[in-house]
Each structure stands twice: as C-alpha cells, then as structure tokens.
C-alpha cells in the first residue's frame, strides 16, 4: 500500500501524471478494513489497510491468490457490502450504496433462471426504468458482440457456464455505466474467446470513456488490459504492490510476445512467489 503513493508521484509516464493532476481521483480508498464476523471460528480479516486511488478513465486490474479479498473489495466498491472501517469515496463523495452509473460483473454469473437471456440482460434497465426500446436494441447488440446472437430467447438453464458468464457481462454493460467492476469476467471462457473479449472490452472502455476495475487470475491478462496492476497478498488481504504497465495503447494481441510484456509478467510472478502466493 505504501507503494501506491510512490507510483502516483514517482516514475510515471508524463501522460498519466497529467491525468492524475487534472482532477481528483474517481475512487479514493484509505485505510479500508473488512472483517467478516463468523459464528463459530472467529473473525475473518478479509481486507487490511487498503489504500488505493483510481483515476477517472483508468483501467486497473487486480491479481492475487484465492481468498485474498478481491471479491470483497469489489463488493464494497459496489456498495453492496459494508466496510468495517476506513474511507471510500467515489467522485469526491463518501460511498453510501449502489450507484446508477455502476456496472458489476459478478464472479458467478447470477442469472435469473425464469427470465430469458435478453430479459436477464435488461434487468438493470428495468430496475432503473430506462427507455426500453433503445435498451432492447442495445441488449441485442451486446449479445451479438459476445457471440450470443440467436440466444436471446433461450433460458439460462440451457446455456453453458461460459455463455452464462457472457450474458452477465452484457447485463453489466446495458446501462452504459461509467464505472465497471468486473470479478473474473472471463474465467470460464476458452483462450481464443477470452482474447477476443479482452479486445472488445478495451474498445468499450475507450468508447464509453469508462473506468474499470477488473479482477483476474491470469497475470498476462492483467498486464495486457491494465494501466496499473494491483497485486494483493492474503491473510489478511493487503495490497502488496501496484505496478504501472508502460505498454503503448491501443494494445493488440501481438504485444503478448514482446519482451516488455514478458518483463511485466515476470515481475508480477516474482512477487507472487516471494509472498507465497499460489496459482
């Protein structure tokens, strides 16, 4: 956590400095703690002393061993889980619940089995009482984008795990949120689809000028997508390092093979090994 201020002020690409200086960060997390009370076996210290700033328009990825509190952090930012202590501000105001400008992809797809695929995608639009005709058109476009056109009227029970996950991604994007929290959104996808989805996500990110926090178990994916990679360590969940990725944008799949890319991946791997992380 002490790393993140270093990076904000230290060796940064000039463009990022400008971005950081130009406005307040979109998300400001300070001294955040989360302790889950459990009935039988004491408390679980899920997050400890988390400090993190996320600037407007930034793409941040989070990696860390299983159980280090990644999902917990995202749920707190989504406003659906209460923090134990510390401070979380979004756009300068203390976080006090979910926000209309927020899109969340959950670790499990969490589709409603009694609604068709397209109706599942439209859930946030219905909740927020958006204009349904354009929302429906957008839902079709999104489903088309993730390779699910023709499945609009199927039911979740008829889809594979990876297809359900893609429906969940469309649902998070339906209301064109400015702030996206994505918890292992591509975990159940094959390598090819995953790469395509990475490129699409980068395109949507640019197009909508969104800010994205994305959790992944794939270190190469974390590097490929991110402006910065947050490396977490477990028990209790802390931020072990925040690493600036200085690969040029727009990114393309050839970059996976460059030496620069490999160095970033290796640096994060080293960190995992030294902190006893798994994967």
């Amino acid at each position, binding site marked *: 956590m002490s790393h993140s201020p270093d990076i904000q002020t230290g060796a940064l690409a000039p463009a990022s400095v400008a971005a950081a200086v130009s406005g307040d960060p979109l998300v400001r997390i300070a001294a955040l703690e989360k302790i889950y009370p459990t009935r039988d076996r004491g408390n679980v210290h899920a997050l400890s002393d988390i400090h993190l700033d996320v600037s407007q328009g930034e793409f941040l990825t989070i990696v860390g061993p299983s159980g280090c509190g990644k999902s917990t952090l995202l*749920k707190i930012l*989504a*406003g*659906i*889980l209460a923090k134990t202590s510390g401070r979380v501000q979004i756009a300068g105001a203390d976080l006090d*619940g*979910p*926000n*209309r400008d*927020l899109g*969340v992809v*959950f670790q*499990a797809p*969490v589709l*409603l*089995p*009694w609604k068709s695929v397209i109706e599942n995608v439209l*859930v*946030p639009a*219905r*909740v*927020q009482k958006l204009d349904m005709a354009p929302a429906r058109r957008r839902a079709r476009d999104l489903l088309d984008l993730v390779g699910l056109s023709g499945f609009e009227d199927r*039911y979740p*029970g008829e889809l594979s795990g990876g297809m359900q996950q893609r429906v969940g991604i469309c649902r998070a994007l339906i*209301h064109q949120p400015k702030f996206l929290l994505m918890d292992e959104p591509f975990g159940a996808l094959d390598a090819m689809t995953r790469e395509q989805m990475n490129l699409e996500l980068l395109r949507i990110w640019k197009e909508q000028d969104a800010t994205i926090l994305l959790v992944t178990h794939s270190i190469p994916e974390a590097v490929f997508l991110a402006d910065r990679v947050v490396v977490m360590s477990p028990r209790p969940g802390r931020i072990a390092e925040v690493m600036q990725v200085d690969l040029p944008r727009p990114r393309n799949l050839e970059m996976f093979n460059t030496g620069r890319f490999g160095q970033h991946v290796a640096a994060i791997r080293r960190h995992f090994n030294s902190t006893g992380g798994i994967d």
Partner: protein
Amino acid sequence: MTQIDTSDAIPASQPAGTAKGVARHWSESRALSPILLIALILLWEGLIRWFEVPKIVVPAPSAVFVALWDGIVSGLFWPHFLVTLWEIVAGFGIGSVIGILLGILIGLSPLMERLIYPYVVAFQTLPKVAIAPIIVIWFGYGLSSKIIITATIAFFPLLANTIVGLRSAPREQIEMLEACTANRWQIFRMIRLPQALPFIFVGLDVAVVLSVIGAIVGEFVGARAGLGYLILQKNFSFDMAGVFAILIILSMIGVGLHMLVVAVQRRVLFWSEATANSVTGA
C-alpha cells in the same frame, strides 16, 4: 492375472446393465397402476361373493358401480356435486389468497412475524373439526359456513410455504439487483416472489387436498346439501354402496384439482428444476 481380471469384469458389467433395464422398465410401465387397481377390484368382488359378506358391511364393487351409475344418470348426485365442488373451490381460493397475502406480510417483515405469527400458529393448532360447529352456528347451514371452514384449513400450507419461499432467494441474486440500485419493492417483485413460487405451488397442492376434507367436515357438522350431506343420508339408510360411490366422486374431485394445480405449475415454473423432478403425489 489378466484372465482373472477379465472374468471379474464380465459379471461386474452385467448387473449394471440389468439394473438399468429394470429402472427403464419400471418408469415406462405406467400401465402397472391401473392393472393393479383392476386386480384389486376383482379380488374384492371375488372375496365378497365367496364369503357372502352382507352388503351393509362392505358392498361389492359391482354394487358400488351400479350405485354410482344410478346416482349419475338419475341426476341425484349432480346438485350435491355442484354444491360441494363450489365449497371446495371457493374455500380453497379464499384460503389460498389469505395465506399468500399473510405469508408475504410475515415473510417480508420481521416485526409482523413477531406480532402475528404466534397467533397464527396457535390458531393452526386448533382442530378445525372442533371449531366447525361454531362456524356453522355463526354462518348458518348454507354454503358460506362450509366455505369458511374450508378456507381455514386451506390457508396454513400457503402461509407457511410463502414465508419459507420468500426467504429462499439466494443472497447473490439480491446483491446483483441491489448493485443496480433496486429498491425493496423491485427486489420483492423481481426476485423474492418468483423464487417463492415453487414453494407456493407445493402449498397449493397440499391445500387442494385439504380443501376436500374441509368441505366434507363442514357438511358433516351441518348442511342441507352437498356430497358430505348425502354420505350421511346414505349412511343412515345403510346404503353402503351409495356411500362408496360418493367416496369415489370425492376422490375424483381431489385428483382432478391436484392435476389442475400440477398442470398450472408446469406452465408457470418451467424454469425450476424442482418442478421437472417433482413427485406428483400429494
């Protein structure tokens, strides 16, 4: 060694194949149940003729069918059938609606649970047969007292199942909806209620069968018409075959209403795995 292995493998694979065959045979043989019924009826007829059982003790199946046929073609059963069917359907409907509404109230509000639920349970522990005479005195010998008695019996399975159902919604689904700024009413309408439906249908299925009992109990206590009233009359005149014929009609009503509930359930809960695998027995 290899020889022993193969000789082991052959008998091991055979029982597996046979077991599969048996399972398929049993599930496919829907004809078995009617065949069993016919065999039992024939056995019953044979025993009664063989031992010359007096017909005021147990009637022969043939006598029951004659009584059933006569009652239907003479038009004797028809008005009583309509009265009882109406009592069952109306009592079931009113009891179910009250049970579901009260279940929603209690299921959504812990305060209401503490305020109301103890009294509801206390009321439920009263045997309805014991309060039936009071209801007949209050509401008279007509339809309304029977409908009320039926409703008091039908409502509890719906109340209990609605409460449990509303609380069965997975936390992840509720969090998902909360994350897109849903309010309590939206969470109720979009998640809790649909999740409660499989439970509510279980309640409906139980209640429909209890409603038949409720209407008959009501008619036994005091009535001027209905199949229960007719059973009492036939009993007084020792017309056992007639009593059995009415019992057949009653069970037909029960089975018919149960099948109606199951048919609606299949349509509404097409998405539920519980429905696909559910046992239809009630």
